[in-house]
Structure formats: structure tokens, C-alpha cells
């Protein structure tokens, strides 16, 4: 303890991009360990908790901040700006949580175009009351000057697609214990793992820790939603026909979902060498289908209504194809028969 006190405190920043805020809350979930954190670190920037303005950050010298936990994806120009800014000011930039890591839930917006999103929000949604068809404008001139809004990008990107990232801490949100471990590792001054590594998770997938019983009989005759089955609480979800992203998802979360009899949704992201966990899982699940003809296979697949939303729930922007092709760019040619 004494030794550690001799060490100067590190400078810590926490920032959110396109995110739900859950990650920030998860930082607070450290509860009494917060004291350990504060004992070792000075929080220099955390919009949710501290009143420090962007200007202040801009004023900091480069590489001044030791660690930034960046959560949330990059949705708009503000996110992008801040990501770049923090990268510039930070020694160790950590993509914190699924959104920063893989795009996360906001990333699913990539399955719609900007127009579609705006139409939905400002026009079509049931609760919308917008008779003047008002749409957000990036610039609006008023007497007092120009009002600006950040630019809403066409698609959602991960932090790594925007700036260089040193480490990833996956999870939606990340397990607080993992955060602490990582944090303590950084502050302890031990040799850091190689850059680009995923921290706070193991290299093995969920199944390794999953308490359910697994066998090699993974044949799927019919896909089910979790509520559609009489779950025995013991058998592997997949063997019961329920989609579970567990095999393609790193463990480290403490299989919290499975503990409560909900199949894994994949927030912890893919195993080390996997580029596109959705594709891997699609492949794996498809292989289990019990059918040798196109007709039977299609019949069974009817129950997989939204493969993109399922297999890419947290990873759409990080996936190989990242997004949907906007309608106006889609090939319109009818097929010759």
C-alpha cells in the first residue's frame, strides 16, 4: 500500500459516444472499490459525473490523460471529434463496452439508412406528432448566431474504425470485476499486455464455462424462441433449438444471462481469431439444421426471422459487410427468368 502511494496517481477519463449510458453506470457499479480507484487515479474527464468541458480537454497537453475508457459507438460528428480528441490526449485508449468494441446495439442502426431512421423518428413512429415535418438541421441561423447540431453519420462505426484503440473491454456492460482487474493492472505498472488485446475476458467461449450440459447432438429440427420451449434448465440451448450465441462469444461475463436461463446474445464479442462472429455463428448454426434439401432447410429457417439482428446483435458495424446497402444504391434490375 505504501509503495503504491508513492506512485503518482494516474489520470483517468471516461467518455460516452453513442451509448445507452449503461457503461458509465457500470463504472459506478464498483461500489466501495471506487475508493481504490480514486486512491489511484484522478478523474480528469467524465461528463456524466464531472463538469469538465470539451474546451478543457482540448486545452490539455497531448498524452496527458493516462487512461480513457471510451464507451459507445461513433454515430455522429461529435462522437468522432471526441474520439479523435481523446485519442490525442490519451496514452491508453480503451474501447469500453460492446458499443465501442463492436458497435453494439446502436450498431443495428446500420441495417437502416439515415433517411429511414429520420423518417421513422420524425414521421412514422406512432408517438410522433410533427405536423410541420420538422427535421433536425445541422446548422440553424438565429438572431443570436448559428445553432449547430453534430452531423448524423450515415452509419455507426466502432471506436476502432475511427481511431486507434489500445485495448478492448467487452460487454454490455462489461463486468465490473473485470474493469477493476484491468484498472488495477494498469495502475500497478506491471507490464501491459500487447496492444490491441481484448481485456477482461478469456480466449475461450461461453460454453467453456456454461453450466448447461452439452453433447455432440446438435441437430436442429426446428428453431424456437426461448419462451416457446419447456426449458429443462440443464440442456444446451442450441440442442433445444434455441439460438444462443454462446459458442461464438468470449466468456468473462460470468454467464450472467445463462444463469437466468436466457441464451447468450453475444455482447462479449468473438473469440480471438474470429473476424466476423455473426458469420461464424451463422455457419455453425446452419450446419446443425436437420435437412438435406433446399426445401426442408428453408422450412426450418423460416423461424430464423432476423438473422442479422440475431447473429450481429452487438457486432454489426464491426462485421465484414458492416451495413445494409441503401435502397437507392441497390441493384434494381429484375431478374431474367
Amino acid at each position: 500500500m505504501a509503495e503504491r502511494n508513492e506512485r503518482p496517481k494516474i489520470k483517468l477519463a471516461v467518455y460516452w459516444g453513442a451509448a445507452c449510458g449503461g457503461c458509465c453506470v457500470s463504472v459506478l457499479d464498483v461500489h466501495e472499490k471506487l475508493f481504490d480507484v480514486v486512491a489511484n487515479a484522478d478523474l480528469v474527464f467524465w461528463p456524466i459525473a464531472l463538469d469538465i468541458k470539451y474546451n478543457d480537454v482540448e486545452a490539455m497537453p497531448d498524452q496527458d490523460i493516462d487512461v480513457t475508457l471510451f464507451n459507445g459507438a461513433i454515430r455522429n460528428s461529435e462522437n468522432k471529434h471526441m474520439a479523435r480528441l481523446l485519442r490525442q490526449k490519451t496514452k491508453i485508449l480503451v474501447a469500453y463496452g460492446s458499443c465501442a468494441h463492436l458497435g453494439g446495439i446502436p450498431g443495428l442502426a446500420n441495417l437502416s439508412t439515415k433517411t429511414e431512421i429520420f423518417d421513422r423518428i420524425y414521421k412514422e413512429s406512432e408517438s410522433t406528432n410533427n405536423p410541420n415535418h420538422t427535421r433536425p438541421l445541422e446548422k440553424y441561423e438565429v438572431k443570436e448566431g448559428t445553432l449547430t447540431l453534430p452531423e448524423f453519420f450515415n452509419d455507426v462505426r466502432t471506436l476502432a474504425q475511427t481511431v486507434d484503440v489500445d485495448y478492448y473491454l467487452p460487454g454490455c456492460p462489461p463486468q465490473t470485476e473485470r474493469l477493476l482487474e484491468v484498472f488495477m493492472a494498469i495502475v500497478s505498472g506491471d507490464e501491459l499486455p500487447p496492444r490491441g488485446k481484448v481485456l477482461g475476458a478469456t480466449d475461450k467461449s461461453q460454453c467453456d464455462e456454461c453450466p448447461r450440459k452439452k453433447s455432440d447432438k446438435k441437430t436442429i429440427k426446428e428453431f424456437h424462441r426461448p419462451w416457446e420451449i419447456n426449458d429443462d434448465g440443464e440442456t444446451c440451448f442450441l440442442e433445444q433449438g434455441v439460438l444462443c450465441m454462446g459458442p461464438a462469444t468470449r466468456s468473462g461475463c460470468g454467464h450472467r444471462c445463462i444463469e437466468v436461463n436466457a441464451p447468450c446474445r453475444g455482447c462479449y464479442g468473438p473469440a480471438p481469431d474470429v473476424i466476423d462472429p455473426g458469420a461464424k455463428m451463422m455457419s455453425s448454426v446452419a450446419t446443425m439444421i436437420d435437412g438435406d434439401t433446399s426445401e426442408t432447410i428453408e422450412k426450418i429457417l423460416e423461424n430464423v426471422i432476423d438473422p442479422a439482428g440475431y447473429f450481429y446483435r452487438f457486432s454489426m458495424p464491426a462485421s465484414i459487410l458492416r451495413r445494409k446497402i441503401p435502397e437507392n444504391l441497390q441493384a434494381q434490375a429484375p431478374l431474367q427468368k
Partner: protein
Amino acid sequence: MEEIKIGVYVCWCGTNIAKMVDVDQVVDQIKFLPDVAVARNYKYMCSDPGQDMIIRDIKQHHLNRVVVAACSPRIHELTFRKALAKAGLNPMMFQMANIREQVAWVHTDREKATKKAVSLVHAAINRVKWHESLDKRTIEVNPATLVIGGGVAGMSAALEIANAGKQVYLVEKSKKLGGYAAQLDLTFPHFYSARQLIKPMIRHVEDHKNIRIFKPMQINQIFGYMGNFQSTLQLANGDETKLKFGNIIVATGLQPFDPSEITSYNYGKLPDVVTSLEFEKMLAKGRIETCEGKEPKNVAIIHCVGSRNANYHEYCSRTCCMTALKFANQIRSALPESNIFDLYADMRSFGKGCEELYTQTSRKNVIFLRFDQQNGLPEIRSTNGEEAVSMLIEFTEQFSKEQVEVPADLVILMVAMESHADAKDISHIAGISMCGNSFFIEKHPKLDPVATTSDGVFIVGTCQAPKDIPDSISQAKAAAARVLATIHVGTIEVDVITATVNEDICCGCQTCVSVCPYKAISFNKEKGVSEVNEILCKGCGTCGSTCPTGAIRSRHFTDQQILSQIQGLLSPDNKFEKM
């Protein structure tokens, strides 16, 4: 990691490639790619000087990867791998780009072909960077051999191997050995007695101390791999016996085509229309007679029943013409006063002594008539007792172009040879590919007619294609040679292209276990990971693309290798828009 140095060699294949692909341009375009140390083109890369060039470069320029753009890797991959080995490089550090079969020979636009060639070479360069050294291993060969099918081919193979002092397990589905040949009366073209040839053969097989016969017996499953197969047989008394063997010779034989589906022949409806096999039985009994027990005055033989006809079998059954000539001779001897008509399409008397038999048969007053299946099949109709003769065959005779009718009291249909119905099951059990007409596919139609793509499994006799007894026996002996050679050497090399599990990543979901068609993957409960038996593994890679964690690597076909290949293939420089 050592610096990657790639040598790239573009082959002209004489003019084969050079005519359609600008080999100079290919070299010019890829020589600046990263890691390419040497890039050349040469007339015949596969020739000794071509190979020497690679070996020299490897030594001089310290190359550690080699790409050859030439013919199909199916042809020369091995040749170049050997060259690499000669130069002291691991043979797997090699990739071929197929710019002959898949570029030069199939395209007509030289510019586009060249472009495509560049992209294929680029892809190969990208891929080879990720290649790893893989080393061959050898495994022991079990000296016993399993022969499936106790016909003349199976028995010949069994005897050949047993006579060389090696154990043979002969499995026959029926109660008797001998198969189809045992049902024949005489053989062509010399009219030796088939029975007298087959009987001693059966006796030798039965008496042989090195042959163990299982009959009637069906093989349901075979486990294992080349050199070390095993199977469990259910004996009649309820016992089980476990057999271990190193090689499999499949000789499932043939079955005759059922002519009842050809309506114009009325087989099954007219009692005196018989198949060649039924007639063979008549001959064996010494009774050539109609259903009423009378000696027929007019006998007609119709060739190509079910053969050479797109509606039934497109192929020629190879033996029917000669069998028909044999029948004609036998009928002539037994019934000297009869009229014999032989309706053929093309007379295929191609074997040694066969054309001579055809001539001889002509001289025995056998009337040869030619029909053409394209112009409709002959119609056999009954005279309904209105004439002395019981049936008439009507068709257009092609040498005279006359519409004629042939009187017949007995009609013999020379039915096609089909692969035996059991062959389909055996193909799954033994892992042999089949072609569209249900005959087994040999490894190479010319140079490897008895081997299959599954190592240690050989096909002999009519299960490969229709053939006569001598050709079946030749094949049986050929397979025996191959088997004896491996037994004699005692070991075989195992393919290096297998799957492997990264135990640090494998989570034990076991999806892969059920996917493997060879049961090469098992789950290690203790470690909680899957394990690959690399001898059983045939390297298909299905597990690799099934594994959701990427723990399984398909060696030599890793994700990384293929992805880089795709990137090379689609490098913007290689697209046609850039032209």
C-alpha cells in the same frame, strides 16, 4: 519471424498458356508486389530445367515461398512440391495458380485472360505468405485386406493377394461365390467353359489358408483409414467378429438392366422374350426352348437393350455384342436348322480374337441386321397364333433402309450392365465417389483405373464400368499389385492437410464432433475440448467452417490463407474495369 521471400514462376506450357496469356505481362505486374523476391517465366516449368530453375533460385535467393502459375494443381502440385523438398524447403510452402485449365484453355480474350491470370497469381502470392511448414508422417499398414464381393474380380484379387502370403477377408453378400460369371455357360471369344474356369477358382479361394470368407454377409460400416481399417461383422450365429485390415478392394459387380421399362420389346408380356441372362441359363441347362417347351425355329437377338440410349443408359455395355455372337454360335450348334437373326446397332467386336469370331459367325448363316436407336426401337409383337411363327419384330433395317419384319419364336434381349444396386451403400461405407450412372469413379480414368480418391480403397471389375472377364481380372490383379506394394513397404504416408484444434480456444461446444463424416473428431471430457485424429481426418475442412470460435484450423486451408487469397484475387488492380 523470418522475412518472407517469394519466388513466382509463370509457365508457358509450350504454347498452351503463352498463346492466351501474356506471360511477360503477368510477371511484370506481380514482380513489384510485396515479398516477391524473384519472378520469372519459362517454357515448361514442369520439365527438369524448369524445376532446376526453382531449386537454383531457392538456394541463391534464399526463397522461402514458391508460387508457380501453370496447369492445374491436380497435375503438377506434387511435382513442384518435390522440387521444393529437393531444395530443402518444406514442400507445403508452395502454391499453384491454375492459369491453364482455368484461364488459357477456357478464355478467348487474351487481355482479359492475362488480367485474370494476374489476379490468380496475386491471390496465390497472398496465400502463400500464410503457408506453414507441414511435415509428412507415416503410419503402419495392416497387412490384411478386405475384399467386398465374391465375383470373379473379387476372387481374383483375393487369390492374388493370398497367394503372396497375405491375409484376405472376402465378404460376399449372397450364399455363393462366383457372382455373375458363375451363371455363364461359355466365355467369348474362345468358348471356354465359364463354369470350369470359375469352379476351380472358387475352390482355390475356399481352400486358401490365407482367405477367410464371410457369406452371406453384408458390410454395414467401415471405420478407420488407409492402412488401418476396421469393421465389425455380425456372424450368423449371433457372434460378432472384429476385422482389421489395411486395404479394401471393392468388387460389387453388376446387375442386369431390367428391360420391362422398354415398352416396344414387351418383355414380361411376351413369354418368349428373354434377357441374355435368362438365355444363359437355358444354355447351361442345354435347353434352348420356347415357353411351350418347343425348340425355336427362329431366334432373334437384339443388342443394346438399355445401352447407348439416352432414355436408359447412355453408355455402351461393352460385352453384349460379343455375348450375342457367342449366343448365335451356340444356337447354331444346338439347333443347326434354326434361323438366327442378330439385330445390332454397331458391331463392337474389338477384343483380341473377337473380329475373327464375328466373321466366323457370319459364315454360320447368322443374319445380321442393323437398327438405329435414334430412329426408333424395333417393335416386338405377337402373331397371336395366326402364323407358324409366334412373334414378329418390326423395324427399319439400316443397311437397306427397308422396313422389315423378322420372324421369331424366341427373342433374346442383350440387356445392359448396370452397377449393382448395393454399390450405392458401399460407396458411402467405403467413401468412393460415383458418377451419374452409378459406376464408381476411379482416381484417374487413364493412369489410375483401379484406385479411388479414398486412399486404400480400390475398385475392380464391373463396379467401375462394364467390362468382360479378362478385363475384370486384369483390374483385380492391378489392384492387388497396389495393395501388395503398400503391404510390402509396410507403411504409408499420411496426408498433411488435416484439421487441428487449438485447445486454448476450443470451448467444447462439440458442434464439430457430429459434423465430421469420418468420426475423426472426439470430445475430450477431461480437457473439455475437441480433439482431431489426424490419421482419420481427410482434411475436408467442414469442421473448420463449422467451429464458431475459430479453434479448428484446417491446415493448408486456413481462414487466413483463404481470406488473403480472396483479397489478392480481388485486388483493385486486377479488375476488368481497370483495363
